[in-house]
C-alpha cells in the first residue's frame, strides 16, 4: 500500500503536521498496520523533495518542532491520478500461506502439510471470530465495520482455500512427487 | 422434437402429476358415460302407435317410455356432467405450480413456447382420450351386461338402441380435444415467460355487490313467472314463446351464478368478521386466507352449491306435488300419475346425491392442493411448535366459514325457484266429482263400482304446500357433511405435508 498517497489524501482537507497525520491515519484505517512516526517524517521528506507538499508554517508550544505541511498543485494532481488508477487484480501470487504449503509438500510429507493447514485454519478461524466480534460490538463505528469487512473477506477467501486444499492435499502430493 | 421425446417429457413428473393424469382420465370417463347415456336416451326412436300416445312400450321405465319425458331425462343426465367438469377443473390445478415450474425449466433449457405448450397439451389430451376410451368401453360393456328383459320382455334401460356413430365419435374425440384446448389456453402465462412463476400482487379488493343483484334478479324472475303467465291467461292471450324458458332458464342461471359469485363475497366477509372477532391463531390464519383469495371459495364450492340449489329446488317441487296429491285426495280425484311424479323426484334426488359426491371429490382435490402448496410454511409452523391441531382448525374454519352461509343461500335460492315455477297454494274442488263411496273391494271391481258411484259437490279448497324443512335440512346437512369429510381427508394430508423433510424442499 502506498503510504505516500494516503498522506497526500489526508492533507487534501488542509495543512497538518506530522503528529496529526499519524493520528488521522490510525483512526481512519483502524485495521492497517500502525504508522511509525519515523515513517511519517521520512515520507513527508520524500513528498517535499518531489514537490508534492510544501511546509506551511511552524508552531512550537513547549514540545518539539511542529512543521505543518500542505498539498501543492502538483501534489493534488498526483493524488487525482492515483485515485483514478485501477489497481491490478492480483498480478502475482504473493502469499506466504501458499508458498508454505508448497514447500511443506516438497520438503516433507502429506501429514506435515495437512497438520500445517489444519493449524493455519484454526488460526484463521480465531482471527475471523475476533474481527466479527469487533464488528458486532455495539460501539463499533462504520470505520471499524468497513475495515473489519475488508479483513473478513480476505480471511474468508483464505479459509475457503484452506478447506478445499485440505481435501486436495493427498492428490497434490502425489502429483508433486510423481 | 421427436414424438418419443415429447411423450417422455410429457410423462416426466412426480406422483402428483400421475395423480393428476389419473384424475383427468377418470373425470373424462365419467363425463363420457353421462354424455353417452344422454345420447342414448335421445336416440330412442319415437314410434307412432297406440292411439297417438307414441309410447315406447319396450321399456319398463316411464321416463324412457314417454317421448315427452325423454328430453328432460337427457337434460338431467347432461347436467350431471357439470359437477364432473368442475371436478376436472379442480384436477387440472392439482400440482399445477410444480408442473408450471417444470415447464418453465424446459423453457430455460431452450424449449420454444410451442414445444412447452405441446407437452402440456399432450398430457391432458392423452389422459382425456384414455378416459373417454375407457368410458366408451364401459358403455359398450354395460349395454351387453344390462340387456336383461324382464318377464314381460321390457327393458330397464335403453340397451337396444345405439346413438349415431357420429355422436359417439364426437364425444370420444371431442372431449379430449376440448380438454387440450382449455389446457393450452391456461398455459399461456407459462409459455410466454421462461420464469413461469410470476410474483402475484395481493388482491385486496372486496368482491362487489354483483352477486346480490344476480340473486335478486333471478328470484324476481321466478316470482314473476306465474303472475305473468296468469296475466296472459286472464286476457286469453298466449305469452311469447320465449318468455317462459327465458324467465326460468335466465333466472335460474342468474341465481346460480349469483350464488357461486356470492360465495366469494361471503368468504371475504366471513374472513373480515373472523379477523375482527375471532380468537386464536387458527381464526387469524383462516381469516387472512379468506380475505386474500376470496374467489377460492367460489371456485371450490361451485359444483357443490349448484347441487344444493338443484336439491333444494327438487325438495320444493316435491312439496308442491305432495300438496297436489293432498288436494286430489280430499277432492277424491286420485290420479295414478301422482305416484309416478313422486318416483321421478326420487330419481332427481339420487342425481343430486351423485352430483354432491362428485363435487365433494373436487373439493378434496382443491383442499389437498391448497395444503400441499403451503407445505413449507406449515412445516415451519409445526417446527416452531404450532400444534397440527391449530393448523387443522384453521383449515376447517376456512372451509366452513364461507360454506355454511353459502349453503344456506343456495338452499333458499333453490326453494324459491321451485315456488316460482310451480306457483304457491294448490287449489282444487269447486266442481262436481264422481265418487265411489263403498269399500275398497267393491270400488275396485268395475262391475260393482258403477252402482256405488255418485256425483258430489266438492267445495273449493286450497292446500298450502309445506316448506319442506326436513328435506331442505337433509340437503344442507349432506352438503356440509361433504365439506366436513373433505376437511378430514385434508387433515390426513396435513400430517405428511408438515414433515420436517418439507423444509428442505423448495
Amino acid at each position, binding site marked *: 500500500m502506498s503510504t505516500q498517497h494516503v498522506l497526500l489524501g489526508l492533507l487534501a482537507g488542509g495543512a497538518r503536521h506530522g503528529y496529526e497525520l499519524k493520528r488521522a491515519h490510525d483512526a481512519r484505517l483502524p485495521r492497517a498496520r500502525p504508522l511509525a512516526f519515523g515513517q511519517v517524517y521520512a515520507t513527508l521528506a520524500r513528498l517535499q523533495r518531489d514537490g508534492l507538499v510544501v511546509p506551511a508554517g511552524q508552531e512550537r508550544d513547549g514540545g518539539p518542532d511542529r512543521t505543518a505541511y500542505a498539498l501543492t498543485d502538483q501534489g493534488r494532481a498526483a493524488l487525482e491520478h492515483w485515485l483514478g488508477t485501477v489497481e491490478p487484480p492480483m498480478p502475482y501470487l504473493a502469499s506466504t500461506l501458499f508458498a508454505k504449503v508448497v514447500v511443506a509438500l516438497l520438503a516433507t510429507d502429506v501429514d506435515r502439510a495437512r497438520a500445517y493447514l489444519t493449524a493455519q485454519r*484454526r488460526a484463521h*478461524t*480465531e482471527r*475471523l*471470530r*475476533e*474481527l*466479527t*466480534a*469487533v*464488528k*458486532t*460490538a*455495539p*460501539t463499533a463505528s462504520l470505520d471499524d465495520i468497513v475495515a473489519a469487512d475488508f479483513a*473478513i473477506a480476505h480471511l*474468508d477467501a483464505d*479459509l*475457503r482455500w484452506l*478447506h478445499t486444499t485440505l481435501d486436495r492435499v493427498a492428490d497434490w502430493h502425489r502429483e508433486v512427487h510423481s | 422434437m421427436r414424438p418419443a421425446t415429447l411423450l417422455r417429457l410429457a410423462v416426466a413428473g412426480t406422483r402428483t402429476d400421475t395423480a393428476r393424469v389419473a384424475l383427468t382420465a377418470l373425470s373424462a370417463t365419467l363425463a363420457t358415460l353421462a354424455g353417452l347415456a344422454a345420447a342414448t336416451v335421445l336416440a330412442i326412436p319415437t314410434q307412432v302407435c297406440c292411439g297417438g300416445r307414441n309410447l315406447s312400450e319396450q321399456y319398463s321405465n316411464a321416463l324412457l317410455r314417454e317421448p315427452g319425458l325423454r328430453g328432460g331425462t337427457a337434460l338431467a343426465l347432461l347436467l350431471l356432467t357439470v359437477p364432473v367438469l368442475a371436478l376436472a377443473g379442480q384436477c387440472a390445478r392439482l400440482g399445477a405450480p410444480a408442473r408450471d415450474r417444470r415447464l418453465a425449466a424446459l423453457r430455460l433449457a431452450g424449449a420454444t413456447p410451442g414445444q412447452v405448450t405441446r407437452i402440456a397439451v399432450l398430457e391432458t389430451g392423452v389422459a382425456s382420450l384414455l378416459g373417454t376410451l375407457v368410458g366408451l368401453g364401459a358403455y359398450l360393456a354395460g349395454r351387453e351386461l344390462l340387456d336383461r328383459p324382464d318377464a314381460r320382455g321390457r327393458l330397464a334401460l335403453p340397451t337396444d338402441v345405439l346413438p349415431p356413430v357420429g355422436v359417439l365419435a364426437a364425444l370420444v374425440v371431442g372431449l379430449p380435444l376440448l380438454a387440450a384446448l382449455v389446457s393450452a389456453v391456461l398455459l399461456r402465462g407459462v409459455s410466454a415467460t421462461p420464469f413461469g412463476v410470476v*410474483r*402475484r400482487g*395481493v388482491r385486496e379488493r372486496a368482491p362487489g355487490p354483483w352477486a346480490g343483484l344476480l340473486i335478486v334478479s333471478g328470484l324476481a324472475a321466478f316470482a314473476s313467472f306465474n303472475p305473468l303467465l296468469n296475466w296472459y291467461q286472464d286476457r286469453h292471450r298466449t305469452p311469447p314463446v320465449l318468455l317462459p324458458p327465458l324467465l326460468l332458464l335466465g333466472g335460474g342461471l342468474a341465481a346460480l351464478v349469483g350464488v357461486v359469485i356470492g360465495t366469494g363475497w361471503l368468504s371475504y366477509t366471513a374472513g373480515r368478521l373472523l379477523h375482527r372477532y375471532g*380468537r*386464536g*391463531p387458527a381464526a*387469524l*390464519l383462516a381469516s*387472512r*386466507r379468506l380475505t*386474500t*383469495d376470496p374467489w377460492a371459495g367460489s371456485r371450490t364450492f361451485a359444483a357443490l352449491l349448484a347441487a344444493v340449489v338443484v336439491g333444494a329446488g327438487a325438495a320444493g317441487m316435491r312439496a308442491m306435488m305432495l300438496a297436489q296429491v293432498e288436494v286430489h285426495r280430499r277432492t277424491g280425484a286420485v290420479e295414478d300419475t301422482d305416484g309416478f311424479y313422486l318416483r321421478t323426484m326420487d330419481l332427481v334426488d339420487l342425481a343430486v346425491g351423485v352430483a354432491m359426491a362428485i363435487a365433494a371429490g373436487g373439493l378434496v382435490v382443491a383442499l389437498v392442493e391448497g395444503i400441499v402448496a*403451503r407445505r*413449507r*410454511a406449515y412445516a*415451519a*409452523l*409445526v*417446527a*416452531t*411448535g*404450532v*400444534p397440527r391441531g*391449530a393448523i387443522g382448525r384453521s383449515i376447517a374454519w376456512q372451509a366452513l366459514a364461507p360454506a355454511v352461509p353459502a349453503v344456506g343461500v343456495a338452499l333458499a335460492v333453490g326453494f324459491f325457484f321451485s315456488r316460482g315455477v310451480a306457483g304457491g297454494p294448490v287449489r282444487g274442488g269447486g266442481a262436481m266429482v264422481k265418487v265411489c263411496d263403498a269399500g275398497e273391494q267393491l270400488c275396485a271391481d268395475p262391475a260393482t263400482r258403477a252402482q256405488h258411484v255418485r256425483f258430489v259437490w266438492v267445495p273449493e279448497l286450497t292446500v298450502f304446500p309445506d316448506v319442506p324443512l326436513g328435506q331442505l335440512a337433509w340437503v344442507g346437512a349432506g352438503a356440509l357433511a361433504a365439506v366436513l369429510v373433505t376437511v378430514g381427508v385434508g387433515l390426513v394430508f396435513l400430517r405428511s405435508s408438515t414433515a*420436517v*423433510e418439507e*423444509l*428442505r424442499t*423448495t
Partner: protein
Amino acid sequence: MTQLAARGVVKAYGRTPALAGVTVDVAEGEIVAVTGPSGCGKSTLLHCLAGILRPDAGEVTWRGERIDTWSEGARSRLRRTEFGVLFQFGQLVAELTAAENVALPLLLAGTGRRVARTAALTWLERLGVADVADVRPGEMSGGQQQRCATARALVTEPRVLFADEPTGALDTLAGEQVLTQLVRLAREQRTTVVLVTHEPRIAAYADREVVLRDGLVDHTGLGLDLPLAGGHR
C-alpha cells in the same frame, strides 16, 4: 453449565445415515455454530436438538431431562415455549402481514391480540423492519422477510434459538444485517443460539464451532476467552 446436549445421537433417513453418534454440549447463553460440508448432518443435528426429529439412538437432554422420549405434543409445547426456530426461507405465512406473522406464536400461547401486536411491533422495531409491519411477505425483500422471521423466532423470548442457514438465501450485506442483529439481541437476552451454517464467515459470529463430517463431530473449535462483544485482543 450444560443446558442442551446430544449424547451419541444416531439418525438415518431410510438407509442413508445422517448422524452416526454425535455428542455435543451447549451451555446456557452460548452461541454455537454447527458447520461442515453439505450433507454432513448439520440440519439433522439441529432438528434433533430442537426436538423436531427423534433420534434413532442416543439421547437429547434439555436441562438434564431427556426430551427425545417425550410425545410429539410435549415436544411441540417445549418448542413453542422455550425454543425459537429460524429457517433459510419460506417460513412466513404468505397471507399474514409481518406483524401478524410475528404475533402468531404469542397468539398460540394464548396472549390477547392487542398485547401480541404490541409485542410484535416492538420486535420488528428491534430488528429494524418496523416499516413493513403491515406488509405481506410477498412484497418484502428477502432480508426483510428473514428479519421478520427472526422477530417471530425471538418474540416469545425463547431460551434457545435454533437457526438453520438463516442467511443462506440472502446476499452478503442483508445476511450480515440479519445475523448482526440476531447475535446482538441474543446476547442482550442471554439466549442460547445453535446456528447451522456452511460458511466460515457466518460461523465466526458464534463463540464456538462444532464441525461435523460424515455424521460425526470432526473437531470443536475453541471459543474466545471473552466471547462478549468488544473482545478483540
